[in-house]
């Protein structure tokens, strides 16, 4: 999902850059106040860990292989602020040292994989934890957080590409989102399995504090949530609003018309690709996303059951 340079235009790069800078600033400020000094080396090592973990491949369908992105794992193990900083550092090193992901596109990559992938994933994790408080709930939360944040990040990535005017939303959104719904299953399963491996080797690392979360965490999550919402409104909604036509007027009024309305979307080869009764591939993708969430929830529930049962047997 690393966007190279040359794909995003300047307005998208600046908009994502501003959002990412704000999120990283919030995270660094939080860490400056709350991170114990002895945890500073761990931050650097966690960055190196995420980098190395991204090179561990696992087979996906059809001879292709996927790799972990690690945003949710980092955030669940170290906290959301540390997760954002760690993933941001990984992206900076990948960009500067390996030319993997562009420097103008750095803001967008940090927003998609750092802010949504890590802090957004953590927000999902916390939300699920509120509903399922037992040990099994942790694994279910990891699964849903990894899946949901990856899919949302892919959708945002498609929105950014479409907003830059290089790919039509109508093909970019279904392509990016559908592919990542499958990739995200790998992310979710590997995250949960890795979490259980860590829990088996060093229970103290994953032990939750007696009070479930630090007080300031809720405030931070609200800030991240606000930034992500702005991003979604900016990158996804101008296109999504084409779908229920009523919102089109709003988009035009807000000045999105150049991006959303006058794009020559009609001649897309995917035009004929519709599911009966559902209309466009965009709508079909949204339906698939909702169905996918239910499937992942069920799958995650059973995975969590297996993982916690095994843990109990070993203990």
């Amino acid at each position, binding site marked *: 999902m690393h966007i*190279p*340079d*040359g*794909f995003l*235009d*300047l307005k998208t790069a600046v908009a994502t850059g501003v959002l990412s800078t704000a999120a990283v600033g919030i995270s*660094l400020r939080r860490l*400056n106040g709350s991170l114990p*000094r002895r945890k500073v*080396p*761990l*931050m*650097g*090592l*966690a*960055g*190196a*860990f995420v*980098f*190395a*973990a991204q*090179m*561990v*491949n*696992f*087979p996906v369908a059809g001879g292709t292989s996927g790799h972990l992105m690690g945003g949710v*794992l980092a955030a669940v193990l170290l906290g959301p602020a540390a997760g954002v*900083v*760690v993933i*941001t*550092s*990984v992206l900076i*090193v990948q960009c*500067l*040292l*390996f*030319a993997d992901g*562009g*420097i*103008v596109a750095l803001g967008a990559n940090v927003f998609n994989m750092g802010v949504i992938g890590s802090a957004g994933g953590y927000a999902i994790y916390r939300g699920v934890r509120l509903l399922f408080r037992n040990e099994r709930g942790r694994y279910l939360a990891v699964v849903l957080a990894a899946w949901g944040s990856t899919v949302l990040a892919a959708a945002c990535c498609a929105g950014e*590409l479409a907003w830059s005017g*290089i*790919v*039509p939303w109508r*093909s*970019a959104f279904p*392509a990016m989102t559908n592919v990542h719904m499958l990739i995200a299953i790998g992310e979710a*399963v*590997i995250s949960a*399995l*890795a979490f*259980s*491996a*860590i829990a088996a080797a*060093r229970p103290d*690392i994953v032990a939750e504090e007696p009070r479930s979360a630090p007080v300031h965490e809720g405030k931070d999550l609200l800030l991240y949530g606000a930034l992500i919402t702005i991003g979604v409104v900016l990158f996804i909604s101008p296109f999504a609003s084409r779908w229920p036509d009523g919102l089109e007027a709003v988009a035009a009024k807000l000045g999105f018309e150049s991006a959303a309305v006058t794009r*020559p*979307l009609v001649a*897309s*080869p995917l035009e004929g690709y519709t599911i009966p009764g559902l209309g466009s591939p965009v709508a079909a993708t949204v339906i698939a996303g909702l169905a996918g969430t239910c499937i992942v929830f069920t799958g995650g529930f059973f995975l969590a059951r297996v993982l916690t049962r095994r843990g109990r047997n070993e203990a």
Partner: protein
Amino acid sequence: MRHDYIDRYARLDSPVHRLPAPLKLALALALVISTVVVPFSAFLYFVACALFLFSVILLARLPISFVAIRLLTLEPLAAGVAILAVMQPDGLFVLIRILVKTNLCLLTMVLLANTTPFAGILDVLRSLRVPPLLITVLALMYRYVFLLIDQSERMTRARKSRTFVPRRGSRWKSAAGIVGQLFVRSTERAERIYAAMTARGWR
């Protein structure tokens, strides 16, 4: 894997390598931004840009094969996204436009990474008032990423040498096991590093 595997040319001696890091970073950034912004109709700009970058390769005495291989390994990432662009009116033109722009940007960044030591870039970031915590994390990451990649490769090799008929399920489990083990070892290494840093009077 050696510590300087990826940026092993960053410490060569050449007129380009001797230029101050801030200048090179600024120049690379300016080049990338202008390549993104300049409309594709100004074809002369892109030719000039390519010629300039090519002369930098020669001046910096970087092996052309090395630069070409770096570019080729990055190509699939760019092409994967670019292929989406074909699905629209005059998509082929858009595809060519993207590929030209992206490759020039990639080449710029590959040259920057291989003519400028990472410590120099970190110094520039420090003077730009990037928060010290982020700099520390980046510096530590740069120092240890090669070690951890090496470690994960050793674990993968050990796993492979003990698995004769891999099934998908078992490969996912072993990949997750390696990732988990890698995190545990990173945590323990971080604890040792903290002790060592404190013993040497860190902060």
